[in-house]
């Protein structure tokens, strides 16, 4: 088991795993998203209060979960890279940042489109919306900091430090609807009493969530290959990998 764990620190091993996994993850993501879209848009019944507008949940909630999940992955990978000086950690963090930023933007835009008919406004300085916007700024800050240094190793360390410090915003995003008065609704899926949705609405949502997670894994595999190649350009194994 530990041998497997140690191999995760090896760039050629991670590169090989990423090459092998990417197509499978893309295929599984496509299936899960296709089922979620069809069942969510055409089969699930309309909500008794929000009518057909509730269907925006199938794009908004999976992207919102992904926005904080990807940040957490980025922060953990950064911490691993800083503490144990494992270069693959920096590669995973660098690969995750643009993906997380794009899904945070998706969360803000889809939430804004949902907010207009339900709250009467596209934007409010609400705790959940504001903390999600700060999350987007953190992603942009991490990416900018990494590219601001001529020495890539210094850029990696500075970006990793900001990613680790910024993880404090993740619980703020999650608990903002509990700690403060908020326009945004509270937890719907994970509650002590169980999900507050019937199965016909819940299963498409879970499928979309799974599909988005698999999609992140697939895109991460492609981006990690690029990051590892850039960092290991002078290594002998890269020559072999490029030739094959």
């Amino acid at each position, binding site marked *: 088991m530990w041998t497997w764990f140690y191999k995760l620190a090896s760039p050629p091993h991670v590169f090989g795993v990423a090459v092998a996994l990417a197509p499978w993850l893309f295929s599984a993501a496509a299936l899960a998203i296709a089922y979620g*879209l069809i069942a969510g848009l055409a089969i699930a019944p309309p909500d008794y209060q929000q009518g*057909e507008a509730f269907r925006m949940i199938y794009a*908004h909630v999976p992207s919102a979960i992904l926005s904080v999940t990807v940040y957490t992955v980025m922060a953990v990978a950064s911490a691993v890279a800083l503490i144990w000086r494992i270069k693959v950690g920096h590669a995973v963090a660098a690969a995750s940042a643009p993906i997380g930023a794009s899904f945070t933007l998706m969360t803000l835009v889809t939430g804004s489109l949902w907010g207009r008919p339900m709250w009467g406004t596209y934007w409010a300085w609400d705790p959940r919306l504001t903390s999600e916007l700060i999350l987007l700024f953190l992603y942009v800050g991490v990416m900018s900091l990494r590219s601001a240094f001529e020495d890539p190793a210094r850029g990696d360390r500075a970006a990793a430090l900001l990613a680790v410090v910024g993880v404090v915003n993740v619980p703020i995003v999650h608990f903002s609807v509990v700690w403060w008065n908020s326009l945004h609704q509270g937890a719907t899926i994970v509650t002590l009493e169980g999900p507050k949705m019937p199965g016909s609405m819940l299963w498409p949502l879970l499928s979309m969530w799974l599909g988005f997670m698999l999609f992140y894994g697939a895109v991460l595999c492609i*981006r990690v290959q690029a990051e590892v190649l850039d960092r290991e350009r002078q290594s002998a194994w890269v020559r072999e990998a490029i030739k094959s």
Partner: protein
Amino acid sequence: MSDFWFMGGYARYVWPCFGFAGIVLLWNIWSARRALAAAKFRATRAMAMAAGEAP
């Protein structure tokens, strides 16, 4: 079928919402593949330069 596209009067919010989500997914695939192609190009160039400089 037209009821489906009408979305109970919320079509102008629901479809742009899913349209934007689709754009983000496609952008992720495109930009990741572009980043990998660029990294492979840089690695190949570095190999060629190293071979050229070799005695």
